[in-house]
């Protein structure tokens, strides 16, 4: 228990501090700096796991961390720290452009940001389906105020839809959790259990028909939160209306949490020797999502909505990786997507801010107006669509290779075609944004300072592509 407190100490203190502090500018700086300290704390805890000295870190009953979870906790903390660091410049730029926000809104934003980080980290640390559900629902509750930060009508509509659709979706995951719990009451665990380690160990004694129902509901429930195809409607709204740092966190960290929920439940199904069922359900949904997102990407009018649909495409790819049953591919694709997409959302925030519009129609000539932002936008867009030599290329290639079996040739073909369509669509839109004459009133706020975090992320993505070695992700 002490370890858990240590892990959550910094975000908790920061959350209280943000509410109590009088000066919002210093809060922004302190939160950003302390979150990097939080990365160090988390890193110190999970180092034995990442280095391979240990395979399981047990904190308390129902709370433990395996290697995959450790990787994701590190990724989530890094994403939030990057977003918070960039947020300082971003909000300063907002003030410069005349969007003055109420200091009270900043207090709520930063308090919720820290609690959001805690809730997301909890998803990976909980070894109990019930606690995972509670954590995922908590992420919705804490991120709703982040989406509502701008206090506009559109932000309000997006927040309301986000809250209602995700809550109802997650409610179905709760029903699924109840089914899994009921399935455990047969066989070895008489009183029933939600402990995942226990469930995996006794998977073959679980009542399969109940487990299957539970898996379907959990997949749809957490899938709503991850934005799988027919249930994705909240995602573009929330991602486009939230302020850029919040969109970056939603896309780069929150989606991974929901997918991790699906991964955990799918592990139980696989352990009960029903690989084929888990594979088909998850992979088919994933492929459907990729194809649908690629089609939506062709006709886009809004800058940030485009990246939201690109996130949906990546969620589909990650689902395929989960369906294949490879934790390594799951993490690799999630990591590469997060690196590039966080950079993109942060950059988009600055570009939209400078141009005074997020409609694609109004954006052009960014290359001329601000070369650093333009260059980074081009590189990050290449990185997120899976062009070599960036990391996403390696992970997407591995996913295609693993899914291309004679029995499932259709899945592999659809994936390749859809990813190609998405690439062309995104590149066309980005080309229009970059090229052409610069807008006269394009005023980028401190473009070099604003490029630091996205630049570092793009370099990270490049490193993942160039130096990708199986050693990095073996044994996940």
């Amino acid at each position, binding site marked *: 228990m002490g370890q858990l407190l240590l892990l959550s100490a910094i975000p908790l203190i920061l959350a209280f501090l943000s509410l109590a502090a009088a000066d919002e500018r210093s809060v922004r700086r302190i939160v950003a700096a302390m979150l990097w300290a939080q990365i160090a704390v988390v890193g110190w805890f999970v180092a034995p796991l990442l280095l391979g000295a240990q395979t399981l870190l047990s904190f308390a009953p129902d709370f433990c961390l395996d290697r995959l979870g450790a990787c994701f906790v590190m990724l989530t903390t890094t994403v939030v720290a990057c977003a918070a660091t960039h947020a300082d410049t971003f909000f300063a730029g907002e003030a410069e452009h005349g969007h003055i926000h109420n200091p009270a809104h900043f207090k709520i934003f930063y308090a919720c940001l820290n609690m959001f980080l805690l809730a997301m980290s909890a998803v990976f640390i909980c070894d109990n389906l*019930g606690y995972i559900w509670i954590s995922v629902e908590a992420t919705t509750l804490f991120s709703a105020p982040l989406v509502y930060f701008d206090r506009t009508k559109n932000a309000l509509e997006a927040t*309301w839809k986000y809250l209602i659709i995700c809550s109802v979706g997650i*409610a179905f995951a709760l029903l699924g959790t*109840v089914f899994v*719990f009921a399935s455990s009451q047969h066989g070895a665990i008489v009183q*029933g259990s939600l402990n995942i380690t226990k469930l995996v160990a006794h998977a073959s004694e679980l009542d399969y028909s109940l487990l299957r129902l539970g898996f379907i509901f959990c997949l749809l429930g957490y899938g709503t939160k991850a934005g799988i195809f027919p249930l994705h409607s909240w995602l*573009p709204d929330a991602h486009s209306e939230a302020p850029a740092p919040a969109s970056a966190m939603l896309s780069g960290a929150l989606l991974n949490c929901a997918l991790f929920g699906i991964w955990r439940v799918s592990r139980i199904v696989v352990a009960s020797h029903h690989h084929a069922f888990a594979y088909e359900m998850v992979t088919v949904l994933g492929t459907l999502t990729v194809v649908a997102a690629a089609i939506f990407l062709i006709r886009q009018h809004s800058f940030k909505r485009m990246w939201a649909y690109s996130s949906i495409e990546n969620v589909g790819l990650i689902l395929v990786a989960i369906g294949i049953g490879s934790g390594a591919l799951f993490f690799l694709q999630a990591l590469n997507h997060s690196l590039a997409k966080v950079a993109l959302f942060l950059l988009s925030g600055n570009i939209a801010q400078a141009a005074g519009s997020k409609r694609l129609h109004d954006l052009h000539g960014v290359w001329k107006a601000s070369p650093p932002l333009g260059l980074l936008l081009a590189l990050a867009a290449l990185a997120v669509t899976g062009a070599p030599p960036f990391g996403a290329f390696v992970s997407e290639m591995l996913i295609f290779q693993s899914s291309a079996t004679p029995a499932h040739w259709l899945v592999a073909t659809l994936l390749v075609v859809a990813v190609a369509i998405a690439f062309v669509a995104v590149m066309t839109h980005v080309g229009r944004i970059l090229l052409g004459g610069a807008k006269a009133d394009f005023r980028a706020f401190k473009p070099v300072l604003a490029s630091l975090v996205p630049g570092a992320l793009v370099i990270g993505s490049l490193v993942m592509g160039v130096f990708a070695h199986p050693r990095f992700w073996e044994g996940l």
Partner: protein
Amino acid sequence: MTLSIYELAVLSASILAIFLLGTTYIRTNLGFYSAQTMAIAAATMLAGSQREPHLYVIALIILLLKAVGIPVFLIWIADRIDAQTDAGTYLPAPLSMHLGILLLGASYILSSELPMMLGHGQGSSRIGATAAMSLLFSGILVMLTRRIAISQIIGFLMIENGIYLFALTQTHGMPMMVEMGILLDVLVGVMIAGLLLFRIKKSFEHIDASQLTQLKD
């Protein structure tokens, strides 16, 4: 077949939910929601006397927070934002009530498809599953057929009630900590949604969720 008190409590919850479908006054809706949650608390209490003693605690918390706290909070909000009736969108209220009755029947048929989960008396398990599923369907129906934002909260709460009832009747009861966490989440969720309702009323001057259609591709 005679029903035990436990089964009566469980069934009355789902029947109260069907009554809810038939009324359009928000205050009456919340009254029915409160009554249905009380029936669930009573069922929890009865289950506690047979099985786990920790169910007594949960029953008490449900009674205080969900059956009294949340409805009072929502009535307070409904009065402040002047939301009195919900005419519904696609289905008139009487029709949706009849649909609710049909769904209760469908739940009874569906419940026989479910694998039997608890050993103690097959009938009790089946009635429980029927009521839980019917409650779940009623909640979904409220979410689909009602127009104003506050009804969507009521629909969500009914869905949550249905899932809770399912866990209560079909399992030995979820672990105490999990139930507490779920309740906390639901409570915070309703509070955030309630605060958003004020904002919606202020910005849009209505709380018609079906007119929130500014955002699209």
